[in-house]
């Protein structure tokens, strides 16, 4: 009996196909892909990382993964250094500041070699997005750590973050990499019940579970970063740039300082900008008969509940929340009464964050119009002033938590 294939019909040709070998190839291939993804992400491959600029962000259909971000930290931060992770929105991302003038570069310079500053802020992110998740995931690997993020008064720091960055929270949550914290779990459960059908919950869970096993996001992000990017995106829509490896895209950010101050704040936008400035406080406050502005009790209690649940208790003390003030060019246009309410909002919000267990202060009240590039984003000069203030606060937190004396850090 010969086993030599004698193909003349389709049935006999099927001897060319060996199901066991095929299955072994399929399973082996998936295991190899997953192993390669874990290896490259853990080791890190963003050699020239500055920040998540437009070509390296969800705006360009590039979604950095949790392990990819952790892989940016590892080659840069030694165990004896204090890790400073910066989160928050476009203001802390450094929009309007070229890479070499970025405020976090100045922060690094001021803090010196004992610290490593990494800018993980994203445009339009909450203080609980992106960098916050990475900081929590790395809490044991880097116990000497400060997390800094910005926000505006009484914006709710929902622990599950917001689109499009909340995938990082779900990823960390489904993979069991976040600390157990019942107040947060309660808010997350309420959110899931309110916003997701069971089918959608299953979709998110199964996608993260599958990715946790196979790491397809990690692998293909690495391929897209190093070799070939295959996702059509609005930042580089045309060939050949559309498929260029993401590493070829430099961090090119326009420089606000190249625009004369008089041309930065266009009169045609003034009414819209003033509406936004007033919106920072007008719906949160009511006026008492005495004429004083008071925070609405429902706003206070709602904010306190969410803020207390946003980060686990043991991580709050190393979390610095900076409240971003609007450009004085616009603030000065507020009537005295509105200005009083605005100041009350910043004072009360910083206090509310502190009451919830965080470090918090505001910045910008003593800045010049030239320190801004628009209503909210800082120019390089504003960035330097911000870096100065944040450096002082980071040093204060580091001293308070025993990071600097060579003693083991307090939990």
């Amino acid at each position, binding site marked *: 009996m010969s086993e030599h*294939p004698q193909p003349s019909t389709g049935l006999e040709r099927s001897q060319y*196909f060996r199901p066991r*070998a*095929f299955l072994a190839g399929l399973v*082996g291939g998936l295991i190899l892909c997953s192993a390669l993804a874990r290896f490259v992400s853990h080791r890190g491959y963003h050699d020239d990382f500055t920040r998540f600029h437009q070509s390296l962000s969800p705006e360009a259909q590039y979604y950095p993964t949790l392990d990819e971000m952790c892989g940016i930290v590892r080659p840069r931060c030694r165990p004896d250094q204090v890790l400073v992770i910066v989160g928050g929105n*476009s203001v802390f991302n450094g929009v309007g500041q070229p890479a070499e003038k970025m405020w976090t570069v100045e922060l690094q310079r001021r803090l010196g070699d004992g610290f490593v500053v990494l800018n993980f802020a994203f445009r339009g992110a909450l203080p609980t997005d992106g960098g916050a998740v990475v900081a929590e995931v790395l809490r044991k690997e880097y116990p000497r750590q400060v997390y800094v993020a910005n926000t505006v008064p009484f914006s709710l720091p929902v622990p599950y973050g917001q689109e*499009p960055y909340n995938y990082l929270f779900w990823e960390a949550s489904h993979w069991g990499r976040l600390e157990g914290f019942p107040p947060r779990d309660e808010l997350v459960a309420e959110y899931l019940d309110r916003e997701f059908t069971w089918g959608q919950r299953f979709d998110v869970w199964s996608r993260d579970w599958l990715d946790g096993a196979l790491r397809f996001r990690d692998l293909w992000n690495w391929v897209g970063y190093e070799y070939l990017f295959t996702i059509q995106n609005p930042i580089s829509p045309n060939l050949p740039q559309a498929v260029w490896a993401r590493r070829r895209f430099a961090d090119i950010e326009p420089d606000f300082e190249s625009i004369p101050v008089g041309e930065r704040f266009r009169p045609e936008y003034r009414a819209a900008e003033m509406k936004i400035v007033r919106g920072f406080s007008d719906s949160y406050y009511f006026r008492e008969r005495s004429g004083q502005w008071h925070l609405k009790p429902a706003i206070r209690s709602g904010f306190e509940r969410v803020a207390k649940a946003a980060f686990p208790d043991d991580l709050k003390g190393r979390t610095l929340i900076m409240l971003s003030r609007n450009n004085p060019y616009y603030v000065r246009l507020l009537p005295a009464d509105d200005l009083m309410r605005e100041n009350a909002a910043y004072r009360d919000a910083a206090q509310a964050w502190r009451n919830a267990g965080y470090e918090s202060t505001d910045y910008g009240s003593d800045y010049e119009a030239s320190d801004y590039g628009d209503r909210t984003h800082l120019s390089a000069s504003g960035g330097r002033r911000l870096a100065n203030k944040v450096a002082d606060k980071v040093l204060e937190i580091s001293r308070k938590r025993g990071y600097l004396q060579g003693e083991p850090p307090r939990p």
Partner: protein
Amino acid sequence: MKYLDNLMKALPERSARIASHAGSLLLGLVLAVLLHYVLYRLGLPSKPFIYVAF
């Protein structure tokens, strides 16, 4: 396919068996990579995020 038939006929029995196993294994590997990529693509939002400062 005819070329493949002729090739398999020309090979000694043992080599033909090894070749068919290797081919099936390779096919599995290629499909694994393809499946891995498809899963990645399916996980991406269909519309990109547009950032608007406010």
